[in-house]
């Protein structure tokens, strides 16, 4: 049985197909079928020949095998410096081997490669900055994930995630109606406390078009209300699109490049339809990476930029605080040791290290903000990036991976961790559950709302 009912090379495209795959609890049958999945070596080799160009070829060729990447990898460090966790080894023994064998690898090899690609690398790109030759293993693992996805060797949740984007243009089964209704409902829930609160849907030529993470709609709807409150308090002329509102891309974690393109094009279509001055996404790292940093390339935009200027939520927050659009009550600033997680996806991958620190300077009493070490572009992955958080099969490896962040947080002495990224937020929540180190964690929105000086027009009448 080369192609399984659940596990096969065909992408999942419709809600029915997504539900069918979801009906296989924990992917038990899916992984059983994977053991018999045939490798299409001709397709594999043909794809490599078409897509492996000078950058990746040269990287694989000139790697000096010097091992300087070893210490840069948190998974190498937490796994007792296991030499099999050295980034160069991980990529040479998977992608390198597939190329050496011209695609003629067997099922067991592909399943092994799947484990390395999703459980031994979070594509955090840290190693890339420690290689004298400038070899970015994270990028190569992204490429390998694409090859594995094409062959059907992809973790169950990743296949579902990519399928969700194909079926719903969202990472979860949230429809456009669900999104608008949930946003409106959340605003109604809060309009007594915050006078004049609205959610402007599909307004053309607004200053800001706001996009979100579907799990906010499904699991954390208060986040939508918080976004509305802050935009309203800042007096922004903002809108949300009723279609093309999802900024994330689990398809990027899955290596489903066709789905990445479909997803990001839905957001760009909204930009082109509503013509906002700027697009601002929620507090999510990979969503920003997918829609703003990588997305233009999937969509074939030669200038590498989205149709309108697109910034991360932390950039907007920093700007709003700097310009006084949002006012903080100094007596309510954080007065306990607090640290902050730099998200790989917008700090190492877009250099946004100053925006978050500027925000800290507004919301934390001087002397209470403690940096992690290392930090900024050199910070370690939260431990759950690149899809790692969501894969049941690799939960054990992921929990081990959290140890680095746990130790970094413990070393700061802070009990409060701000994590302006959904993935990091999840990983930090899970590490508290796993290790019980007594920390609290938060996005920025709820923290800022607590210390906000509301403009008079928003205050409820006494």
């Amino acid at each position, binding site marked *: 049985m080369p192609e399984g009912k659940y596990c096969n090379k065909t992408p999942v495209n419709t809600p029915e197909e997504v539900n069918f795959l979801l009906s296989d609890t924990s992917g038990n049958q899916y992984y059983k079928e994977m053991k018999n999945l045939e490798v299409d070596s001709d397709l594999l080799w043909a794809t490599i020949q078409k*897509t492996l*160009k*000078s*950058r990746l*070829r*040269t*990287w694989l*060729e*000139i*790697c*000096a*095998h*010097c*091992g*300087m990447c*070893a*210490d*840069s990898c948190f998974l*190498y460090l937490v796994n007792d*410096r296991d*030499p*099999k966790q*050295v980034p*160069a*080894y991980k990529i*040479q023994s998977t992608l390198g081997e597939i190329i050496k064998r011209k695609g003629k690898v067997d099922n067991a090899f592909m399943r092994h490669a799947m484990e390395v690609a999703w459980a031994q690398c979070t594509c955090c790109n840290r190693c*890339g*900055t*420690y*290689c*004298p*030759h*400038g*070899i*970015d293993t994270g990028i190569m693992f992204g490429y390998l994930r694409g090859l594995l996805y094409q062959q059907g060797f992809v973790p169950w949740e990743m296949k579902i995630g990519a399928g969700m984007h194909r079926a719903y243009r969202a990472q979860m089964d949230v429809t456009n109606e669900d999104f608008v209704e949930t946003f409106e409902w959340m605003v109604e829930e809060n309009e007594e406390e915050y006078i004049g609160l609205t959610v402007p849907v599909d307004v053309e030529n607004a200053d800001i078009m706001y996009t979100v993470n579907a799990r906010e709609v499904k699991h954390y709807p208060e986040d939508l209300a918080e976004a509305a409150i802050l935009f309203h308090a800042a007096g922004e002329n903002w809108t949300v699109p009723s279609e093309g509102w999802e900024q994330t891309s689990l398809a990027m974690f899955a290596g489903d490049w066709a789905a990445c393109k479909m997803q990001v094009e839905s957001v760009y279509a909204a930009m082109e339809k509503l013509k906002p001055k700027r697009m601002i996404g929620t507090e999510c790292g990979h969503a920003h990476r997918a829609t703003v*940093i*990588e997305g*233009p*390339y999937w969509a*074939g935009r*030669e*200038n*590498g*930029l989205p149709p309108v200027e697109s910034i991360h939520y932390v950039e907007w927050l920093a700007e709003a605080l700097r310009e006084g659009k949002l006012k903080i009550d100094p007596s309510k600033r954080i007065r306990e040791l607090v640290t902050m997680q730099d998200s790989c996806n917008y700090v*190492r*991958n*877009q*250099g*946004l*290290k*100053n925006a978050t620190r500027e925000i800290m300077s507004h919301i934390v009493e001087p002397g209470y903000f403690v940096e992690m070490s290392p930090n*900024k*572009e*050199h910070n370690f992955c939260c431990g759950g990036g690149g899809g790692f958080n969501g894969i049941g099969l690799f939960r054990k490896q992921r929990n081990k991976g959290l140890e680095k962040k746990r130790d970094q947080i413990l070393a700061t002495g802070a009990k409060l961790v701000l994590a302006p990224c959904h993935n990091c937020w999840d990983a930090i929540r899970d590490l508290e559950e796993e290790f019980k180190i007594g920390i609290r964690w938060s996005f920025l929105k709820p923290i800022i709302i607590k210390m906000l000086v509301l403009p008079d027009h928003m205050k409820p009448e006494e």
Partner: protein
Amino acid sequence: MHEFLTGIFFWFAITVCLVGMLVRFVLYFRGLSWQLDRVAYKAHPKAGMKGAFRSIYKWLIPYGTYGWRTQPFMAAAFFGFHIGAVVVPLFLSAHNIFLENKVGFSLFTLNAGVADFLTWLAVVCAFFLILRRIVLPEVRILTTLYDYFILFIALAPFLTGLTARYHVGDYSFWLNLHIFCGELLLIAIPFTKMSHVFLFFASRAQLGMDFGIKRGGMKGTKMAW
């Protein structure tokens, strides 16, 4: 033999090396793809160039990057070896006398003491680089016979050159062997991992452009190499 090595074979080796490097350099940059690499090289040449130069420059400075500083011993062995490996062949006075006779021009030359020092430095540092490959598990797992072969062809001209320089044994034999090893190295450059002598610049420039254009450069953030 000496005539052959300093005549036809010299011209052959130098031609293969230079033409080979040029061809591979051009092929490298022609093979870059804005869409596959996801870097808009052509759309933002200025940001790209800035990033490329910065990334090359920082990594050429001993301890100039975070990466070098976190591994001080590796950095010392690396620079000790590479400074000797680049400077001695180019600026040794004997090489330049040869060059002057052959093509009528020569470069600045090192005094003998400095040349000796740099040569020994390269040899000693290479020894530590080899030791590192044997002793450290994270390097041992990566190391293949091919890596030792590359180290061997890089070191052979130094070892034979030193033997000739101190007149150990038959001088003309060691001199010829030295020339032969040097020419072998030149021929190996375009075809083996030795290609890093020029592809280092290509690869670093590429990642520099990536950071300069896409990963923060255009946001005004310099990557902290």
